[in-house]
């Protein structure tokens, strides 16, 4: 079986977010980039399956749409255990653009399983996975929290309202994964880091594609106000403030 893990290069989750150009662009200066956490877990699961069941998975490929700078993240994915990588040399403009680029880059590669994260930690669009499944005409399941594979079949568990659902599907198959797919991201071992240098990283030119959306502006969430405390006797005042000041009731 061949697995494709789609990875996106996102700002470290502790980044202090700032905007520039009149709040139309994200300020990238001083930002540290990491593998999108869901993608890192997907990759971890793929590597686990490869290591646990010899012969089941022949190859794990990672793909990213990003500039040259995203290669550090790609090499980390190779260090974690991917066998090779594809980078589409373009800025990831929006979900449709990214999905189109990935679809174009991998359409002839016959992957049995494709994994995407449920969203990316930067724009949280939650759209690439579904679009990619459509473009490649694949069965897909979203909110996947566990994944197992044998021969030409996968079994996934997915979160549903109030419980979980277990689904079996034939490959080729695309899973949009979330929490639970793996417990902790796999830490690249020294051997993996050394090997990452020599693993193939193919850079492909972007295909023609539209950008369907455009960012007007960003806004910071309002800073949280100070907390007010009331004694048990202060109910009247509490009601008054909720009504007149917070305008909640």
């Amino acid at each position: 079986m061949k697995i494709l893990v789609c990875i996106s290069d996102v700002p470290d989750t502790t980044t202090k977010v700032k905007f520039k150009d009149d709040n139309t662009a994200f300020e990238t200066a001083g930002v540290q980039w990491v593998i999108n956490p869901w993608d890192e877990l997907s990759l971890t699961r793929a590597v686990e399956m490869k290591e646990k069941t010899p012969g089941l998975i022949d190859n794990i490929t990672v793909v990213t749409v990003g500039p040259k700078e995203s290669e550090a993240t790609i090499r980390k994915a190779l260090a974690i255990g991917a066998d090779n990588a594809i980078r589409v040399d373009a800025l990831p403009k929006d979900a449709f653009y990214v999905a189109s680029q990935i679809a174009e880059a991998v359409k002839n590669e016959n992957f049995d399983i494709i994994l995407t994260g449920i969203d990316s930690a930067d724009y949280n669009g939650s759209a690439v996975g579904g679009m990619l499944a459509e473009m490649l005409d694949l069965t897909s399941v979203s909110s996947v929290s566990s994944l197992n594979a044998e021969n030409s079949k996968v079994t996934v568990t997915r979160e549903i309202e109030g419980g979980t659902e277990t689904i079996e599907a034939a490959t080729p198959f695309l899973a949009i994964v979330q929490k639970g797919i793996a417990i902790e991201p796999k830490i690249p071992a020294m051997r993996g880091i050394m090997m990452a240098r020599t693993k193939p990283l193919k850079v492909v030119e972007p295909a023609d594609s539209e950008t369907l959306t455009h960012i007007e502006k960003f806004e910071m969430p309002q800073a949280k106000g100070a907390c007010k405390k009331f004694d048990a006797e202060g109910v009247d005042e509490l009601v008054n403030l909720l009504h007149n000041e917070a305008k909640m009731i």
Partner: protein
Amino acid sequence: MNKMQKEKSGAFIVNETDSNDVFIPEEFNEEQLMIADTCRSFIDTEVAPHFEQIDKGDRALMRDVLKKSGELGLMGVSIPDNYGGFGQDFVTQMLAAEVIGSAYSFSVAFMAHTGIGTLPIMYYGNEDQRQRYVTKLASGECLGAYCLTEPGAGSDANSGKTTAVLSEDGKHYILNGQKMWITNGGFCDTQVVFAKIDKDRILSAFIVESDWEGVEIGQDEHKLGIKGSSTTQIYYNDVKVPVENLIGKRGEGFRIALSILHMGRMKLGANVIGAAKSAVTLSVNYANERKQFGTLIANFGAIKYKLAEMVIRVFAHESAIYRVSKDIDVLMDDYKKTYEDAGRAAIDAISHFAVEDAILKVYGSEMLDYVVDEGVQIHGGMGYSAEMGIERGYRDSRINRIFEGTNEINRLLIVESMIKFAKKGNYDLFGEAEKLNESINDLCEMKIEGGYYEQKMTTISHFKKVIALVIKAFTNSFKSIAQEQEIQNNIANMIMELYITESLALRVKKIEDTHNNASLPLYKDILDVKLYDAARIINKEALEAIASFSETAEDRIPLVNAIKALTDVPLVNVKDARRRIADKIIEENRYKI
């Protein structure tokens, strides 16, 4: 990066260094950063959740965590590939040591295993010993210890009484004696033991396996800090050590012990950076949460002062650590061209930098003690509570001034090595001092002019002149300088300030020249404050030293005037500079500058 110059230990006392020739932490490559990341993730996920349990003395857990680090390959960072390691350069080894340094007792156990427990065999062992032991130590299959200290032999390490007598059949050395303060003693599989063969004056080194008959491991010591690291006595009662387990030659043990200590000091210098950065983070986290008098304590100038001083010292020390690490790599590559054995080339390059490793051991351990002390202070009463990480940091810091050679011994080594290398002709310290003496009155007229960096570098060159003059006067005044430890301390303190401040200045200049870095103004603040402080310290230490000489007050006048003039630096608004540095840390809410 430019082709690096080959540096000589201590030569910074007279030579000027081009900032293009120093390596700075801003230049770590992608692979080095990935290795650091791996170390950090390992500590976050496998060690940090167990800090408390480890400190309760759960040795099985410690062993288990150590083994896991081995599985990840972390124990092989310094070991060449043909012995199961990953053959990383010294800069990378130091970066890994920095990150591991934030893991309290685990760090001590890990560093003892990978450093003093493994490297004597790697650097001085023969092929057979490396295959038998180093491969297993590099993977974590075996855990190692280093047994030099004895009840009667601490700082005076060569005075040990443990003996090794060749058996009649010539197949074994029979080992008898007692070792003390042995890190990892409680669970190690292999030990590097130092003992004297027959009536030798000098030590030899042996590999001993803990489960051999006659090896008796004592109880764990109850300690002030690093409680999770095992420290025991070990007794040897007629232990039969196969002759194949003698490391290097008979009588080579003391040299091995000292070289390994040089390496250990360097690595300790890196460890303390990681520990200090995490203490800064804990402290600023607290300052950003704790309110008094209706405001966060982070808003108080007294707290900002502390945070800024912590950062200044960490940043300056870090500049020196990676500067010398690269110097070691350059020398190592050079030695490897001519040496038959890469292990020897490595250890000779590391131990070449005797002046620098002693500086970094002393400055680094005192830097960390300052940082954790002020860290506790920022926490107020909570800093005294065992619930807070800073309390552990405070206790665990203290050992660094004691082991790997006490700071007293290392201060003496700074001065002795510098004078020794000068007398060997490695650099012309005394010639320079002679020239300065000839025109000593002109020194009072020296001006600090030019652009920002020119002024800084001129000031630093003035520090060099002061130190050269004091060393010259000192060696002229005393037949045996060894009897004058107080003055040696004065000189050691000046040399430390010089090296640290110069490394900082070279780093900031290189960042300005080659990197587009938004924090540059803050780095300049750090440099401004540090240089100003260094001038005050050097002024005090130099005058104190000179005043302690037997010369009459009259003879001293030109020298005293020169010292005063050369350490006279322009005033700096240190308050505002420190506030800006602190504000950045407060905004980031962690050590990030």
